[in-house]
């Protein structure tokens, strides 16, 4: 470079050049900020739409309509022989009781069609409530009492106005609507908290269908998933990152872990079906198998996250520990791992949240079955929340519509509780340093 091409710039000259380009720089900055803001606003709008539609659809599932009926616990119907035998009490026709009461309220209902409609005003849940009352307290037999009983799910839909406007209703529903009106005028209808939704298992009857079976199934499945994938994943990450020699084998393992993280989840379901159920003979539809399948799916995510968290721990910490004679294991567990915990927890959150929301691989191992009982052990048949949502969304009854949205809300709440716990753990470790 010759001297002539390198003329010294005066201070004023540099200043002019900088000032000339400044407007462009400023506008680029402003543009970028605007883009960022716009994308955040767009994201928030989508989130809002999602929440409004789900909550708007589902909040009504948390309440249920009850009707007050004067029930006469007729000995002749419940226990004709008078032995108060629990078997007899359980087998009695309780629907006769509320049918008699309804007929008394609507004496002018005479036609066969109309009678049938009136007999469908209440359902299975009313029978069950009466039965539970009598078995719990047999001295009720022979008395008459006013009792709040749940209506049929179609009637509940009508009361909530979910079957459409008046002109869209068919003849049968109009009839129901008229009775509802009469009962409402007599203050015989109220809506109360739908406890059954949170305590029951699945059912073909929407009024008796609850989320608790799926919640328990999800909890048991996730317990297996977290219990296996977290220790195995962290151990694998620590070994690969801190102890394994760098050679062709570890490179191969690393590449394959990255590949596994990208495998579609249904493939893991097929693997689980072939290996855990067909080969090892573990019980199908069980949280055990579901948890194992989800563990396989979650492991790569946790390993990758944990490795990068370990890698980001400054080497000076390792040198300091080794320098005073800590063994490699002491170095890892006393110094490196505590610093890596926040990063590992982030990976664990992502992995387990994905596992909680996963349904495809669980369909392959039979967790899509219709299961009424609440699972009690890791080997009993169960379903999980996303699969339950899928099942309900597929059901024709109108009342399952709001239950689907309500189940999504429960799933989201489950997710938030889990993530909240993980964030708490992360914060606790972050604050320490």
């Amino acid at each position, binding site marked *: 470079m010759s001297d002539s091409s390198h003329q010294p710039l005066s201070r004023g000259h540099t200043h002019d050049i900088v000032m000339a380009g400044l407007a462009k720089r400023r506008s680029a900055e402003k543009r970028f900020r605007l883009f960022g803001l716009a994308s955040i606003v767009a994201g928030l709008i989508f989130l809002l739409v999602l929440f409004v539609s789900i909550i708007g659809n589902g909040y009504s599932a948390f309440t249920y309509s009850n009707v007050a009926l004067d029930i006469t616990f007729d000995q002749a119907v419940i226990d004709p022989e008078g032995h108060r035998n629990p078997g007899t009490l359980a087998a009695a026709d309780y629907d006769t009781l509320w049918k008699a009461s309804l007929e008394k309220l609507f004496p002018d209902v005479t036609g066969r069609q109309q009678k049938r409609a009136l007999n469908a005003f209440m359902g299975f849940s009313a029978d069950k409530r009466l039965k539970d009352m009598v078995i719990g307290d047999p001295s009720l037999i022979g008395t008459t009492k006013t009792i709040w009983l749940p209506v049929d799910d179609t009637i509940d839909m009508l009361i909530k106005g979910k079957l459409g406007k008046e002109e869209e209703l068919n003849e049968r529903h109009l009839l129901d609507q008229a009775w509802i009106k009469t009962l409402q005028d007599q203050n015989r209808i109220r809506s109360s908290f739908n406890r059954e939704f949170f305590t029951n298992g699945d059912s073909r009857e929407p009024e008796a269908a609850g989320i608790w079976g799926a919640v328990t199934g999800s909890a048991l499945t996730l317990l297996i998933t977290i219990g296996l994938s977290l220790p195995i994943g962290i151990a694998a990450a620590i070994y690969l990152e801190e102890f394994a020699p760098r050679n062709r084998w570890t490179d191969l393992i690393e590449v394959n872990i990255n590949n596994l993280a990208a495998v579609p989840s249904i493939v893991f379901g097929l693997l689980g079906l072939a290996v855990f159920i067909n080969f090892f003979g573990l019980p199908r539809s069980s949280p055990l198998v579901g948890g194992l399948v989800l563990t396989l799916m979650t492991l790569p995510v946790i390993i990758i996250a944990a490795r990068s968290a370990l890698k980001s721990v*400054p080497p000076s910490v390792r*040198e*300091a520990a*080794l*320098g*005073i*004679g*800590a063994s490699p294991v002491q170095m890892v567990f*006393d110094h490196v791992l505590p610093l890596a915990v926040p990063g590992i927890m982030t990976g664990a959150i992502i992995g387990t949240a994905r596992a909680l929301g996963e349904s495809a691989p669980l369909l392959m191992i039979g967790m899509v079955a219709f299961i009424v009982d609440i699972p009690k052990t890791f080997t009993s048949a169960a379903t999980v929340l996303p699969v339950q949502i899928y099942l309900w969304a597929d059901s024709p009854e109108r009342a399952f519509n709001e239950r689907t949205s309500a189940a999504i809300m429960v799933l989201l709440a489950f997710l938030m509780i889990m993530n909240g716990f993980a964030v708490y753990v992360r914060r606790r470790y972050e604050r320490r340093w």
Partner: protein
Amino acid sequence: MTKLENSTMERPFHREHRSTVGTFTSDNPRIVCRSVDVYYGEKHAVQNINIDVGRHQVIALIGPSGCGKSTFLRCLNRMNDTIPDCRVTGDISMDGIAINGPEVDVVPLRAQVGMVFQKPNPFPKSIFENVAYGPRIHGLASNPSDLEEIVENSLRRAGLWEEVKDRLPQPGTGLSGGQQQRLCIARTIAVNPEVILMDEPCSALDPIATAKIEQLIDELRALYTIVIVTHSMQQAARVSQRTAFFHLGHLIEVGETAQVFTNPQHQLTEEYITGRFG
């Protein structure tokens, strides 16, 4: 650093004379090194080093950046083991026991040969925990009060006790740079080593903190053998009894500090200490 070393090694500069001048032996050696070579993969980073480290002496390793002095220092407590591709050959023995073989357990070795690093690197834990960690993992304290005593003594010897005695549960990373480095020294001497290696311990510190550390090194000499790598020739002159000059992976000259600085035997040494290169 290694890149720089590589490029300078390529130069056909001062290739002629490569054997060490001066007296590399010591009457009362603690560490004896013979024909030590270090390779980073293909690169021959440290070549044929012969040197003794005397008991209760401070020996300073000086030389331009990338001359291999830190690499050599890290041979003495086997810290080079942590670098993949790094290979150390030759004989290194401490008190007559070989320490370079693959059969040597590095854990007790590093308990005997402590190290203070260039950048202060306290653990992100409390001041107390920083000092207590070494004695705890080696089982040097039989009960909590023993441990407290070790911590207090170590901090006192490192000249830090008065400054931190009221804030022992606070994080060690909250101290100033000079205090952090003295905390690292306290952490090292808490294990009661025989040798302390210091890798440019003052390069990140201001002159006042440096003066404190230098004074500390002088006091510690009575109890420990110290090997210090430094870029400051004034520091080498102030704290050490012997000085070794490294250049391009070779040990050029070693001798009494006063003699090396006032009457260097090798032309390269003279050029370096007079500031003509480096």
